[in-house]
């Protein structure tokens, strides 16, 4: 068992038929709370997005994010309970992301989770946000076992993991510069399309021809499993400087479709390569960019032709959410893996 739990003396593990975990997620710019039953039935999944606030600045402003979290946290938790039709006293344990993320944001969620754990005398699990992204797949497919290759692709992360026989997780590749979502956001900002960039580009690209403009496939032949996306952004900007008319209304859809295709192509290539190298038969994808429709269809096609089983959660569970945090918390709970109420928050952390 992890942690020495000075306060556990007061914790009475509830002898319930159903295990109800309250999940809290505030690692970046969304205030989220969720109630999940037995690690798989989502009773509520509330997300208060701050996109409008940060949109003005073209990216997340940490101080503003923390301010919104602290204003909303109790309301969002209460809303999650109301929607789930569950009383606070029925909750078996509380689970929260405490790493990695924005410190000021994480502190709000972790403070709230500790307050609930202490005052309701129930166990507390501080979990890794990235691992929770991977586990978002378990909400839909709880019977899934190891081994698999996991790709987490979001606004802050782009990493490949190999999950072995005993659930040991090893990072096998990561981006050496920008995350894929960051590349989407930066290009959208450059093109004046708004924030967050991913969904806008996704929509626009669906009307475009992805083979119209030639885009580099950074590091596709690098030999390792790492990624690089900042060069792609530079290439696109360079192209538009050379030929400003490609920014015209009739060309822009083709332009973003070509850009999106380059990102997706590299992600597909490296993820399947990682899976082959490990000799696995399963791939799990998650994170905000896994909401991308081109990514979903290209991964599905490739999985089909390679005979690999592919798992990508529904779009709402790809984004930051607290259901995945409750789901991961559930597995910690049944394993007796509780956290001490003295845990802190960390901006960086391995999975």
């Amino acid at each position, binding site marked *: 068992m992890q942690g020495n739990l*000075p*306060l556990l003396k007061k914790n009475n593990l509830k002898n319930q038929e159903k295990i109800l975990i309250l999940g809290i997620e505030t690692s970046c710019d969304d205030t989220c709370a969720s109630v999940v039953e037995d690690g798989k039935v989502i009773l509520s999944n509330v997300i208060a997005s701050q996109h409008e606030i940060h949109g*003005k*600045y*073209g*990216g997340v*402003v940490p*101080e*503003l994010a*923390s*301010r919104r*979290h*602290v*204003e909303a*946290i*109790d*309301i969002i*938790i*209460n809303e999650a309970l109301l929607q789930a039709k569950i009383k*606070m006293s029925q909750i078996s344990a509380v689970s929260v992301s405490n790493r990695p993320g924005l*410190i*000021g944001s994480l*502190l*709000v*969620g*972790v*403070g*709230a989770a*500790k*307050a*609930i754990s*202490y*005052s*309701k005398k129930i166990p507390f699990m501080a979990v890794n946000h990235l691992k929770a992204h991977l586990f978002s797949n378990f909400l839909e497919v709880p019977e899934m076992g190891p081994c698999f290759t996991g790709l987490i692709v979001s606004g802050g992360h782009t990493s490949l993991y190999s999950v072995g026989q005993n659930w040991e997780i090893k990072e096998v590749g990561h981006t050496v510069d920008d995350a894929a979502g960051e590349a989407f956001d930066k290009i959208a*900002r450059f093109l004046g399309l708004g924030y967050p960039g991913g969904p806008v580009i996704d929509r626009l690209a669906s009307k475009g021809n992805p083979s119209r403009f030639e885009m580099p496939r950074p590091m596709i032949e690098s030999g390792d499993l790492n990624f690089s996306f900042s060069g792609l952004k530079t290439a696109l900007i360079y192209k538009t400087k050379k030929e400003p008319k490609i920014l015209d209304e009739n060309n822009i859809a083709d332009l973003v479709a070509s850009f999106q295709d380059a990102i997706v192509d590299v992600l597909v290539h490296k993820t399947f390569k990682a899976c082959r190298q490990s000799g696995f038969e399963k791939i799990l994808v998650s994170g905000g960019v896994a909401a991308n429709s081109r990514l979903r269809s290209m991964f599905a096609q490739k999985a089909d032709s390679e005979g690999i089983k592919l798992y990508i959660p529904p779009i709402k569970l790809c984004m930051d959410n607290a259901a995945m945090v409750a789901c991961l918390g559930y597995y910690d709970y049944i394993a007796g893996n509780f956290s001490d*109420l*003295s*845990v*802190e*928050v960390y901006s960086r952390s391995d999975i």
Partner: protein
Amino acid sequence: MHILGIDSSTEKLSIALTSCSEVHYLKNMRTYALQYSRHSGFMKSIIALTDKVLEKAAIDIEEIDYFCVNRGPGDFTGTRIGISLIKTFALSQNKPSAGIDALDIYAMQAAYYNAAKIMQLLSGGLRACIVPAIDIKRDELFFCIYEASLYEGHKCAGKLVYKNRELFINKIGNDSISGAGTFIDSFKEYFKDLLGEHLREYFEKQNNALFFCGTAFASYGSIAAGLRELKHKFFIVKKSLYPDAQYLNICAIYRFYKNGAAIERIMPYYAREFTPFKKK
């Protein structure tokens, strides 16, 4: 009734549990308080310290009737941790909560430590103002003016009662910001605006007193020299340079009896708006 207060708005974390009678609310008040200087963050220790206070008082968190917190202005991170905790305690226990303005707490604390002196001044026809000022960084101070007054007492007891009359402090000015170097000048200007005609009279009677408190006086020793130039009777209340959660609780008790336990949505209180630089 039992009140739990957390003040994490400065580098000194303060947690207090106050138990008092429902009728004479400040009578037979018992308080268990703990103050702790921060080395890193409070996140690590805040629950254990809260537990310690409750244990000392032999009160379970389920018995708490009212949760309160210093809602700022203060350190951004510390204040947010306190608010997040108190809000969620109240939510999980289904009990009311209150967010108290930082300057109200400093002023209450200063009034408490100087109650006898202030009441003596007031009964002698003199006046007393309490001026908390806090360091809000970037060479700026945030301050406010409170004036003390006496009323026929009815509920209150303890330190704040004098010949059956009760000491109250009323905020008479809105908050304002000034450079630390020019604190005295801005203070005088501000004071003039607020008190208008009364100003002359206030300053003419040099025995009218000014009580200063708050972190500004811990950060900027130079202000004291400026105050001396006022040629006025002034006191720097050393016991109220940092806020103590006991007085946060007393502020909350006053509010409780004035407004009842209204369901309050605690919002942090910032000294200035935050405006990020716009990225191109």
